[in-house]
């Protein structure tokens, strides 16, 4: 076990998998000579050389096609988007190619590709660079969607992603890159997809989130505990596949649920979670499922407006209290 930052855990996963499997290579903007926009790939060009750490021009369609085509031809590419906002350029290659080729071919082609990079909101990056779009990918059959909240998961889930024979959307959170945590050294440490983690046990309400939202939930749960309200906090870790069973079991125990995410509320992933809980645990609920989510606006620049657009722990506390009232 070693203590390291979330960003270092991502790098460790890349390094170990490249050491293990010679078909793994990386491509993306500024990942090599520049050492990575967020320094995630620092040192990898020197270690693995330019065939395996490929600096690309600013060409997201090209990056997505390069990774998808190479995967179709039997390699295991890991493509970095400098931010997931820039992946919008590549939607046709992602949605109409990577996600569909296995199905369209009746299973005759595998597409073992990972698309990774930072997502999430904040730091006054404003409308085009500060958004969370995981539901777009979760909505599309053919993608697995992974959003780690902790350094150990960043490592273990990314290694699982690289070994998975399918396209994986791996969304890191730029706001978590500096987060410290214990990370297993074991090069066979893998975190399976579709298994949620209960980060805190409780009896009064279930808080369900992923990525940075988990940290909001934990902070809110701590504050609520001081008032004698015990919340269970579930970290989904992967949106697709979704571990709905862990969620339902918890809701059957607590009878209340609050879903939390940074992406927009309208048609956001919380709507899917809420619907599933209502479909499968309606008679266990003592209150309607609450959603805490980003304001349905393009992200504003001004600090006060941005603060108002991003969910915080007080929003979570208020939502829990509404379910208890």
């Amino acid at each position: 076990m070693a203590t390291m930052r979330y960003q270092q855990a991502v790098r460790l996963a890349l390094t170990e998998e490249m050491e293990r499997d010679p078909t793994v290579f990386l491509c993306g903007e500024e990942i090599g000579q520049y050492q990575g926009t967020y320094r995630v790939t620092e040192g990898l060009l020197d270690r693995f050389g330019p065939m395996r750490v490929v600096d690309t021009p600013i060409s997201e369609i090209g990056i997505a096609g390069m990774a998808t085509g190479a995967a179709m031809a039997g390699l295991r590419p890991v493509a970095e988007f400098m931010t997931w906002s820039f992946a919008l350029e590549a939607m046709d290659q992602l949605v109409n190619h990577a996600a569909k080729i296995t199905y369209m071919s009746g299973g005759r082609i595998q597409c073992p590709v990972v698309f990774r990079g930072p997502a999430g909101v904040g730091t006054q990056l404003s409308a085009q660079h500060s958004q969370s779009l995981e539901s777009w990918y979760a909505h599309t059959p053919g993608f697995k969607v992974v959003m780690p909240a902790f350094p150990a998961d960043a490592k273990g889930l990314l290694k699982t992603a690289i070994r998975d024979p399918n396209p994986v959307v791996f969304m890191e959170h730029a706001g978590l890159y500096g987060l410290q945590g214990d990370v297993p050294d074991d090069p066979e440490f893998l975190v399976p997809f579709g298994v949620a983690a209960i980060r805190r046990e409780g009896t009064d309400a279930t808080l369900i989130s992923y990525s940075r939202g988990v940290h909001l939930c934990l902070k809110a749960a701590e504050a609520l505990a001081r008032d004698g309200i015990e919340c269970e906090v579930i970290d989904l870790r992967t949106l697709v596949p979704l571990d709905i069973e862990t969620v339902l079991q918890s809701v059957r125990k607590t009878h209340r649920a609050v879903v939390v995410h940074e992406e927009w509320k309208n048609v956001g992933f919380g709507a899917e979670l809420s619907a599933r809980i209502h479909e499968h645990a309606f008679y266990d609920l003592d209150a309607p499922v609450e959603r805490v989510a980003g304001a349905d606006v393009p992200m504003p620049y001004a600090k006060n407006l941005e603060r108002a657009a991003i969910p915080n722990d007080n929003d979570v506390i208020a939502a829990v209290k509404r379910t208890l009232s």
Partner: protein
Amino acid sequence: MAKTTVERPAEDHIQQNELIDLYRLMLRIRRLEESVYRLFRDAKIGGYLHRYDGQEALVAGVIPLLQLPHDKVLCTYRDHGHALACGTPAREVMAELLGRATGCAGGKGGSMHLIDPPRGFLGGDGIVGGPVPIALGVGYALKYRARMLGGGNHICVCYFGDGAMNQGGVHEAFNMVGLYKLPILFILENNQYAMGTSVARSTGQPDFVLKAKAHGIDGEKIDGMNVLTVRDAAQRVIDRIRETGEAYFLEMECYRFVGHGIGDDNTKSWTTYRTEAEVNEWRKRDPILQLGNYLQDRGILDTTQMDAIDAEVRQEVADAIAFAEASPEPPLDSLYENVFS
């Protein structure tokens, strides 16, 4: 009436049996394509349906020269001929068109998504410029295998139409292929029209070879109605790509004799973007007619032998249709299979 025959552009190094194979392959594509509109009208084929009539030389002159399945082929949705040329049996092509379990994609792809990876055919792509960025990746994988994993000097052949030349992703991919120097043969199937929009109406710079060169990819334009011209150029260029590892761009000037798709099948709607006279003019350069005349002039085939080949080919198509019609639909419980591997 003066016959249209192939002018031999290079020294005659092709064997007589290879010439006959070329003729047979083009005829197989033509006869299969001629059968599909009736099947569509009988509601046996659905969706979109894009025929290759007139463009047969583009695949017949190239794909038989490849080292399949190690070399790879990609194309767009006008893909029936590419599948046949890669060796996919007509039965599996037809079964896919009819949406049957025995189709080359198990009935999940349809006309636009024929695919046959064990034969090196990585598929038809329903998006106009879609296969070009994919080819970048396939080409990178081939170079990677050669450099890093002890693979051979294999190449990727990527077909796409003139309409693709106006899509952004194509130019991103060209730029990266020129940058990384990848073993890819790009074949521009310039059939003069992107659906109903002519080249003249879609770009201010119709010199497509210039556009490839702008990205660091060498290239040339050739007559795609003459299968021997295509074959000679392809052989020269494929050898060059294997030797240098660098991409090449072949613009093949050609013409589709029927509409873009089932939607403009009839003569009436052709008049919205092209005239019957124009179509008839191009039909005089029919690649099958040209090669047939050449074979006759050279005494390689007589009309009796050509009729016999035609009869065999028609029988193959009839057999493919019968096979497809007798094949089961995909089982309903396969609906959720293959979303993931």
